[in-house]
């Protein structure tokens, strides 16, 4: 009996537990706290942090691949959807079905702000190289500046799977922090007068425009950057479901149940890549720091292009909508709205900021496509 008890004891995780794993569980606990109490993007941060917890339980082997006649761990199987790049496009299917590209179609120039807000991606790419990351890793870190979770996960799982956990956590954390990170930058770069600009109402958008938009963007975007096709195609298919008005069932399922199922599996397994030896490195600290830089530079570049458009348009464009180009839909657009109203309570920038905001999603997908074309 003592014998058997010893065998059982050996099988527990207790003897194998390392301080690094304990530390990881503490970090997971902090992230769970942020997700629940501070409501930091809980839909993804809660599964991610619980996945982190599960992956750092010694001896549980939830991420073990199959082999030696043993089947694999539960999370390993669920992780195949990340490994094989299936989950992020499926999430984009739902995002497309939820996204109204109307404000962008009504004001096509705002797409430039979505482009400007990708500068942080490329600046951080350079920054990460300077810190000694490989080109692939640097590209994956830079994309955090795009403020687009699924795209960041897609790129990282292709180019730098060893950093996936840290990148995902950084991306979703900063997306949740947009209302804290952006306003000081926005105020520092704009004058009181600029912030007070009231923009003209957007023109209406016809149903035909709404339907042609996803089709043509898919074709043109995928022709120019074939590597962006899975994300762009699914985003636009979802949007076509939405705008066609004839397949409500599919649109609703893409937005809800399919999306939720994929979010659960994606979140838990992305979190599960953050094992102690992957995560507890100086690299993770650099990633967190660089992610913040990426966000800040993207915000600043968006605002600066906004200022240029303010000048060129003779004062018709409020530069505050530029910061919305980082995507983080629709949080960043709401930040534009709030900062604008602090200057002029009757000013409604929200719809104008939605244009750059959704353009920022496309911009980040394009940036990811460029990196994949070069390093993929």
């Amino acid at each position: 009996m003592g014998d058997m008890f010893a065998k059982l004891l050996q099988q527990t995780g207790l003897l194998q537990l390392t301080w690094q794993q304990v530390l990881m569980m503490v970090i997971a606990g902090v992230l769970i706290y942020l997700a629940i109490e501070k409501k930091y993007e809980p839909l993804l941060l809660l599964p991610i942090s619980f996945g982190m917890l599960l992956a750092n339980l010694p001896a549980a082997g939830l991420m073990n691949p199959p082999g030696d006649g043993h089947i694999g761990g539960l999370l390993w199987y669920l992780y195949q959807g990340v490994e094989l790049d299936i989950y992020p496009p499926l999430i984009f299917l739902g995002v497309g079905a939820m996204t109204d590209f109307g404000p962008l179609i009504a004001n096509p120039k705002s797409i430039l702000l979505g482009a400007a807000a990708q500068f942080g991606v490329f600046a951080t790419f350079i920054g990460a190289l300077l810190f000694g990351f490989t080109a692939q890793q640097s590209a994956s870190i830079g994309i955090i500046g795009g403020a687009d979770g699924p795209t960041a996960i897609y790129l990282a799982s292709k180019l730098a799977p060893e950093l996936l956990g840290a990148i995902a956590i950084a991306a979703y954390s900063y997306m949740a922090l947009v209302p804290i990170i952006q306003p000081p930058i926005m105020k520092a770069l704009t004058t009181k007068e600029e912030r007070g600009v009231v923009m003209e109402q957007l023109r209406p958008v016809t149903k035909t425009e709404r339907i042609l938009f996803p089709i043509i963007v898919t074709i043109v975007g995928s022709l120019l950057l074939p590597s962006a096709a899975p994300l762009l195609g699914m985003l636009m298919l979802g949007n076509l479901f939405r705008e066609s008005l004839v397949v409500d069932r599919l649109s609703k399922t893409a937005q809800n149940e399919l999306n939720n199922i994929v979010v659960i599996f994606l979140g838990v397994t992305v979190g599960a890549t953050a094992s102690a030896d992957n995560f507890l490195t100086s690299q993770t600290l650099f990633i967190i720091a660089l992610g913040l830089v990426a966000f800040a530079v993207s915000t600043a570049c968006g605002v600066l292009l906004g200022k240029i458009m303010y000048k060129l348009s003779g004062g018709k464009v409020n530069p505050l909508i530029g910061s919305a180009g980082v995507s983080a839909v629709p949080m960043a657009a709401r930040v534009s709205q709030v900062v604008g109203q602090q200057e002029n309570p009757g000013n409604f920038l929200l719809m104008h900021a939605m244009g750059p905001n959704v353009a920022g999603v496309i911009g980040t997908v394009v940036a990811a496509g460029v990196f994949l074309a070069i390093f993929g």
Partner: protein
Amino acid sequence: MWEDILIAILGALVVFAVLILLQYIIEAIHAFAGRNDKKQQKETAAAAPVQYNADEDAIQEVELEDEEELVAVIAAAIAASLNVSAYDLNIKSIKRVPPYTPVWNKMGRQQQLMNRL
């Protein structure tokens, strides 16, 4: 390193180029399709204010999707129509109507089916 900076610049340029191209495409779509359904547009314009400004009439258009909490709503609605409190109303059961339903009902259900097959 130099090459990497080139990549970064090139990348940013490509992003800009693609998005500027998309801008022109959106404008082209507008030129081509922005006026096509003016009539639909006008209808919408006419319908929208009614929907959100109306304050003398009850809601006429309610966008609904599903869920079982509806029992509460049904209770409330029935209560209202009977002029009693929802608390005096005891919904004993919301029976599933057995499948022997009259033609008009079947037709509606089958219509759904067609769209699903």
